[in-house]
């Protein structure tokens, strides 16, 4: 194979391997004094978490949305949302139960609708973001098997146990970053039109 052929093959391999990352995108819009996002190309209900869900085991998800001055800059605004997602093994539908900041439940959802229900609700207040200066957005999630509330007390013994059983409870994580955005340039939607927001 010629040198050009090898380079092309290598490029195809690299592109193939990284296509999942390249296909991910984070889009922003404003709704009144709130900033909302949509994430494309990320299937967070997948892999080990999805297998557990399909086995009837609820899975905790934490989503964080952060506005930054630059990719590695300081934080302008941050929001954290917690959900418990479960899967009805008879109806084969998902339930998204938001725990924080305010409780809300949506049930009988398809996989895509459950993912959308988690993402579309995320919002950031725009007061601390300049309308003319560029900023970056980081969207991240973390999932682990749901634990009962009474067992959430943190102790070193518990940490040892957690580290010891890493293989059993290894959380799945994902991060998508995008920017720069300028607030005044973002598309606007009418407040209250949040699509499938619970």
């Amino acid at each position, binding site marked *: 194979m010629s040198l050009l052929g090898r380079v092309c093959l290598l490029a195809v391999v690299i592109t193939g391997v990284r296509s999942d990352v390249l296909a991910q995108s984070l889009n922003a819009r404003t709704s009144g004094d709130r900033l909302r996002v949509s994430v494309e190309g990320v299937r967070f209900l997948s892999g080990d978490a999805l297998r*557990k869900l399909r*086995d*009837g*085991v*609820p899975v905790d998800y934490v989503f964080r949305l952060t506005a930054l001055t630059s990719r590695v800059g300081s934080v302008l605004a941050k929001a954290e949302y917690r959900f*418990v997602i*479960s*899967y*009805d*093994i*008879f*109806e084969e539908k998902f*339930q998204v*139960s938001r725990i924080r900041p305010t*409780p*809300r*439940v*949506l*049930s*009988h*959802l398809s996989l895509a609708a459950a993912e959308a229900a988690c993402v579309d609700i995320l919002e950031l207040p725009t007061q601390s973001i300049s309308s003319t200066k560029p900023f970056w957005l980081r969207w991240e999630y973390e999932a682990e*098997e*749901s*634990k*009962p*509330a*009474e*067992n959430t007390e943190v*102790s*070193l*013994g518990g940490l*040892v*146990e957690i*580290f*010891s*059983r*890493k*293989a*059993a409870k290894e959380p799945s994580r994902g991060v998508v970053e995008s920017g720069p955005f300028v607030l005044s340039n973002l598309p606007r939607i009418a407040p209250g039109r949040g699509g499938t927001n*619970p």
Partner: protein
Amino acid sequence: MKKLIFLLLLTFSSLMTLGQQAPPSVPPNATIERVDLSGLDDAKLSSELRADIQRLVGQTYNAQTIEALTQDIQVELPEFIAAATTQPGSQPDRIRVVLLVAKISDDDALKANINSRYIVDAIQLEGMKVRISDELNAELQMMVGANVNSAQLGSLGDRIGNENAGLNAIVTWKLQRSSQPQHVNVVYDVRKARNTLNFSLAGGAYHSRQGISSPLFKMSYTYTPVGTLSFWMVNSADELIERYAGYGVGYGLGSQILRFELKYSSYRTQWKTNTLEADKQSNQSPGLYRLRDTLSGQATFKYPLTARVLLNGSAGLEFGELQMQSPRLGFQKSNAFTGHLQTSYSRRSGMYSQNFGGSYDIAAGTGIIDSDFIYARHEARFDYAYTRQPHSILFNFLAGRVTGNAPMHARFSIGNARTLRGWNKYEINPLGGNRMVYGSAGYRYKIITGFYDVGSVWDSGQPRDIRQSVGLRLSKSGCRISFLIPNPECFSLTVGFPINGGKARPAFIVGMGF
């Protein structure tokens, strides 16, 4: 408002118990005379759905049609769950259909897991074989017939893991559809942890007349199937006459049934003045050493004779090198064959539990393996505990015999944090003995234990001096988890009074992890 709450509770109890009841018998070809909606204002439904519901009146009952209607309600109102039940109508061939609708956010269990509305039919275990106490088994069986409870399933899974901690297993649970609609089977999957890091402190004590004694830490890393690598550091003056401090490393490979282990340890020793003086005066002392290095290899096995009786044992070889400080400087070899046999019986049932353990140890130093110490050491131990919460009675018995010339670490000693509490081993017999008998009886009520200890250590041919002590101990019943920081549940406080000791000088013992 009260009426509303009552109605909500009624609706939920109906929904949650729907699957537990046998489906109401519906006469064949029964006609639906009325359809009622419970738990929801029908104005919240679309006009199409309301029309579909009313269209059922006068039709022949069809379970699939009713089920499809409840699905339609759930699709239209994703924050609600819906189910249907039937009631007798005004005529024998007529029935009334009740559509029960409830808001999910009003029920914590449903919010945490939508499957909480289903009924558990059976509990199954898959994967590795595990032993489960009667008490845990009873709790597992109590879930049968009840709604799925994720928190309880997780908690009982953890307990299965804890009761089989030696297996280094991961316990997970999952639900499978049962043969009955709306019913599920719970499956606990027990599988070997592939990659485990453990770090623990355990078994330390402070004895007011003997000082602090504690393994500093032990850590082990297991990578299945390559094996377990362990490392520990220790500074102990409890079980032997000597205080020894140093480190050890080990490697283990095998299954829970058969396992091979290789260990190396290097300990520096310190001797109390009583022992140093006794060594100078006694021509029967085997000599004191300042360094003890040991390389040992052993094969261990575990075999469950029955569900409650476990037999385990080991056979091995030890190569020890002692850097002697008396009677003359130099090195001596302390090589020995070792053997260990142990059986345990455990039975729990509700408030009652019985535990019995017995073990026998043998060590033999011979010229065949080039040992400078030629001896045989035998030690037997029996422990029994009977508990009817919150009361327990406890018995321990220990006996040992050494023939030949054994090194100091193989000689017997009692009068420490665990035996003949109240006495000081350095005053009883500062060089230890080659004969030993010890017994203890105790009564425990909640966290208080009263005990009576009796025993003697002596050298063959010498007179026996039987010593006794009584005392009190405050402790929780168990401290099984590994921990990094002192856990209040793992501490114990003991005060022991020697009897017939001339001076009634008590010993105070603060224990950690036992």
